[in-house]
């Protein structure tokens, strides 16, 4: 208020200049004045008040009815002033929330961090991007002494903070399993039991668990209602869907999971993903699964990590750089 009172004389000068010349320069300075006022948190009713005062000083003979109309205008501006202050307060609150979420997102990154195994003869790539700051997607690698690699990919229903909270639960239960070679079916059965006891009835989690045995080049896997991945056969230069049936985690405590097995030949690729990949929308159109395998095929000469990144960039562009769901893709290729 005090700064504005100081500005009263300059406002009066401006107004006078404009009334006399009606030139653009005065209007430009009016714009500057309003920007400055906004910075000082000055509300519209105060501006009207300054205007009224300036007017009465410039034209002392101004008719009463005009002055009264000005007071009427001021009265109508009071609620706008309040709305403006509320907006400012909410904006500050939003910044606060935003920074809290960034802290939480950092914590999540640390919590969920997993090391991609570096193995002779096995090329592994992974890309994961949350739609919002926090992710409802989970992926994790486990490596044992004998050269087997366990890969978990999971997707919690929904996204954002609720999904992220649920994700921490998966992380801790997965950590409770021993690091030795665990078969996918028993891992999913164990997880299902934990999830069923700990989540809301409308919450569920889909999960794919695979175990790659480097000694025999066999891939064992089970799925709990997870979006099917792709298997690329180098010999036939063809993609097929990794079919695995199984109920999502958290619905039926007694669910069992069938385990599948396949021999992986040199050059073959296993592609695992979350439904953020297949649920991509380009405008009103959904992306067909063929489009994903086509894009992977296009980049198949690249290292696995680069393929996942290229696929992500491709679909990010298709969605105008606004992900609607978390996106995770893992590629495992047998090199020798």
């Amino acid at each position: 208020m005090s700064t504005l009172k100081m500005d009263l004389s300059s406002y009066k000068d401006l107004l006078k200049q404009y009334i006399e010349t009606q030139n653009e320069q005065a209007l430009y300075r009016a714009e500057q004045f309003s920007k400055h006022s906004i910075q000082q948190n000055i509300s519209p009713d105060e501006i009207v008040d300054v205007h009224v005062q300036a007017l009465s000083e410039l034209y002392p003979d101004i008719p009463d009815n005009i002055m009264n109309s000005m007071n009427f205008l001021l009265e109508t501006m009071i609620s706008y002033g309040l709305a403006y202050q509320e907006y400012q307060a909410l904006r500050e609150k939003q910044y606060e929330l935003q920074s809290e979420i960034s802290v939480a997102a950092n914590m999540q990154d640390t919590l969920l961090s997993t090391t991609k195994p570096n193995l002779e003869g096995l090329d592994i790539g992974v890309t994961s991007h949350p739609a919002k700051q926090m992710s409802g997607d989970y992926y994790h690698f486990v490596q044992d002494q004998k050269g087997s690699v366990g890969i978990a990919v999971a997707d919690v229903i929904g996204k954002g903070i609720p999904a992220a909270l649920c994700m921490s639960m998966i992380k801790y239960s997965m950590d409770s399993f021993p690091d030795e070679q665990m078969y996918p079916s028993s891992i999913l059965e164990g997880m299902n039991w934990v999830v069923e006891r700990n989540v809301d009835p409308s919450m569920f989690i889909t999960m794919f668990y695979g175990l790659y045995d480097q000694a025999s080049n066999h891939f064992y896997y089970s799925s709990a209602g997870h979006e099917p991945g792709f298997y690329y056969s180098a010999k036939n230069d063809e993609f097929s869907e990794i079919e695995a049936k199984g109920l999502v985690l958290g619905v039926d405590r007694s669910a069992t999971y069938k385990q599948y097995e396949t021999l992986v030949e040199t050059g073959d690729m296993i592609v695992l993903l979350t439904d953020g990949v297949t649920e991509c929308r380009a405008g009103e159109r959904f992306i067909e699964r063929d489009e994903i395998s086509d894009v992977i095929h296009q980049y198949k000469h690249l290292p696995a990590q680069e393929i996942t990144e290229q696929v992500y960039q491709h679909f990010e562009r298709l969605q105008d750089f606004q992900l609607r769901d978390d996106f995770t893709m893992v590629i495992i290729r047998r090199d020798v």
Partner: protein
Amino acid sequence: MNLNINVDDNEKLKTVTLSGEIDAYTAPKLKETLLPLTQEDQAVVKVDLEGVSYMDSTGLGVFISALKSTKEYDSQLTLVKMNDRVYRLFEITGLTEIIDIETDSTVRGGM
């Protein structure tokens, strides 16, 4: 991004007809309508999904909680007439094995 819910609350059979999209925004509304129906003792509830063009996993969550409540209240839930894309979601997630889904080949056909 809208969902229309129409309930025909007959004493013997409650029919819920849906049209539009079931996603994170519309799922709460569906849950509010559907759960009280399946939470009635021995109620028979039929949900018609013919007009549903899109559904995401939040929608599945609603049907899962409705299914869980049928066990508690000895009621019945049947889903009818869903398009291929929606059916695929139920299939992938293994829910076709535990939810009663009536498929109509004339509606579903043409994959």
